[in-house]
């Protein structure tokens, strides 16, 4: 039998030294921003019942879930998404709290991807959910939080905003087959104009069909709203106006050329009902931040309420931060403290004093001073304090680590 004890499962990896520090730094930055804006942290279990992520309303395919069963044979999954557990939490334990709820999280999600494509199965996400509030101000609050988070961690981002209402409302004019609707949705999402034309041919030339045809091309700067106006009547006219207002307000946050509108933006998670948005980093193929309004989701957990939120990929932000500071050498202790025989306690006390002064300090675990010195030289520790009846400081020159 093959033995896998020396490798980690595909899609996972160990995080070392600088990577850990960098990831913690990003996590702290994000947490600080979220809590400063009044969001409170929650942690949900890594294991949840399958039913929380029912593909019928989550849009998460069962093939991406890591599944197992509990002692009663109920299906349990590794958390594949953070919004659904928080919706569950808000609808149950937090149902009596004053709304709106402002919650944030920093925790990993687990998804199984097709093999050998370089995708990770374990991704730390940070995000906020604003539950129990609808309307422009709530949308703006969450978007502004997203912008502040990205500005702090990866200022070169691009953000696009759209509205699930465009596709949702236009799709009502389509034949009822869910399969067909999914094909049209896929063609809009992938801006596959040709396939969309084929799907829609034979459905006549109603204003809705004409608008659907135009949908994937309606992206870009503010000019999009002018281009879209002829297609948007009735309910959609209102949607377009409110999206434009949001766009303008966001542009006022100093986003400038980093902001786009995309009316053909349909998120993969089917639960979005209002605004949807994503953010991208250059050279990072997939979106690093996704979010939107999901007013229908809490109903599945028995407590209908409007909600809006986003999640950002902490690992992608960490990679970007590490690339910006690629040449940094790994951090080493400033001082090695070696206690002679009988002076172990004195050495510990001396080390504690140095640490209190702000130095990074290792206490030697070697039996002799020579061994300790050889170690310090080999690892590039420039100073050794030898504690005996007195304290003697030895300094080493530039050494290759």
């Amino acid at each position, binding site marked *: 039998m093959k033995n896998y004890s020396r490798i980690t499962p595909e899609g996972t990896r160990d995080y070392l030294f600088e990577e850990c520090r960098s990831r913690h730094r990003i996590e702290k930055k994000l947490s600080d921003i979220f809590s400063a804006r009044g969001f409170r942290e929650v942690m949900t279990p890594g294991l949840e019942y399958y039913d929380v992520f029912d593909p019928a309303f989550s849009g998460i395919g069962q093939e991406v879930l890591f599944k197992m069963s509990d002692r009663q044979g109920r299906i349990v999954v590794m958390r594949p998404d953070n919004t659904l557990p928080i919706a569950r939490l808000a609808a149950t334990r937090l149902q009596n709290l004053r709304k709106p709820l402002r919650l944030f999280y920093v925790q990993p999600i687990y998804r199984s991807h*097709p093999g050998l494509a370089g995708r990770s199965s374990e991704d730390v996400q940070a995000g906020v959910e604003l539950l129990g509030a609808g309307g422009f101000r709530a949308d703006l609050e969450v978007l502004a939080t997203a912008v502040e988070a990205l500005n702090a961690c990866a200022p070169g981002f691009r953000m696009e905003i759209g509205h699930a209402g465009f596709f949702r409302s236009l799709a009502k004019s389509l034949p009822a087959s869910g399969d067909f609707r999914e094909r049209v949705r896929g063609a809009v999402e992938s801006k*596959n104009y040709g396939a969309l034309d084929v799907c829609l041919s034979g459905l006549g030339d109603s204003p809705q069909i004409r608008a659907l045809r135009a949908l994937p091309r309606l992206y870009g700067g503010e000019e999009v709203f002018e281009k879209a106006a002829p297609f948007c009547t009735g309910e959609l006219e209102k949607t377009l106006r409110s999206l434009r207002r949001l766009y303008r307000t966001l542009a006022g946050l100093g986003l400038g050329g980093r902001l786009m509108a995309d009316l053909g933006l349909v998120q993969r998670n089917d639960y979005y009902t209002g605004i949807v948005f994503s953010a991208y980093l250059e*050279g990072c193929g997939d979106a690093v931040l996704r979010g939107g309004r999901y007013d229908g989701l809490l109903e599945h957990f028995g407590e209908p309420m409007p909600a809006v939120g986003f999640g950002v990929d902490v690992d992608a932000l960490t990679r970007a931060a590490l690339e910006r500071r690629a040449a940094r050498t790994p951090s080493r202790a400033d001082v090695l403290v070696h206690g002679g025989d009988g002076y172990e306690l004195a050495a510990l006390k001396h080390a504690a004093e140095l640490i209190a002064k702000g130095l990074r300090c290792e206490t030697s675990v070697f039996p002799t001073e020579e061994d300790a010195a050889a170690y310090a030289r080999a690892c590039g520790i420039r100073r050794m304090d030898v504690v005996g009846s007195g304290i003697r400081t030895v300094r080493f020159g530039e050494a290759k680590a």
Partner: protein
Amino acid sequence: MRPLRIALTKGRLEEKAVSLFERAGYDCSALRNKGRRLILPLAGGGMEAVLCKAPDVITYVEHGVCDAGVVGKDTILEKGGTFYEMLDLGFGRCRFALAGPKGTDFFSGYSARTVASKYPNVAANYFAGKAMDVRIIKIEGSVELAPLLGLADAIVDLVETGTTLRENGLQVIETLCGVSARFIVGASSLKFRRQEIEALASRLERAAQAEGPERKAQP
């Protein structure tokens, strides 16, 4: 900023892709004299062409290391992925078909069928759509051999003229769908380099339309 990087499928689609870029007015002299180089300047260095195998076009575009690519719909259907499929370029046109030995009825009876294919996902999706349980065996080379050797009842493969099928005593049972070369764009690249990509796409679209008068878009 680095030049816009376009991944081109080597082999069958390469010549037609290069001539499309030429007709669209882009200088392809480096691609015409490529030697063994894999990354070549395009349009006098304004863009870069990367030559790779079809599935790798999708991989490089999805990961954002190439901005756009030219790849067959057959590969897109088999491999899937997240990117914008912006243009049907109209060349490399053929179809996916289910084919079996002449004179046999693939769909009759209730015994489970075995199907050989170079495109196991395309085959699996097709039969799942028909709610048929079929054993699918992946074959790397000439798939026509599998039914001839008695390994499979039928094959799912790309068919252009049908000559290979005929010469080996096989016939098309059903056509799954048509395929052709597509221009794909990475999601992130479209946000960062929209003007360049749209300019390229509209020039390619015009050149492709000028070429094939009877071209028709396919899903």
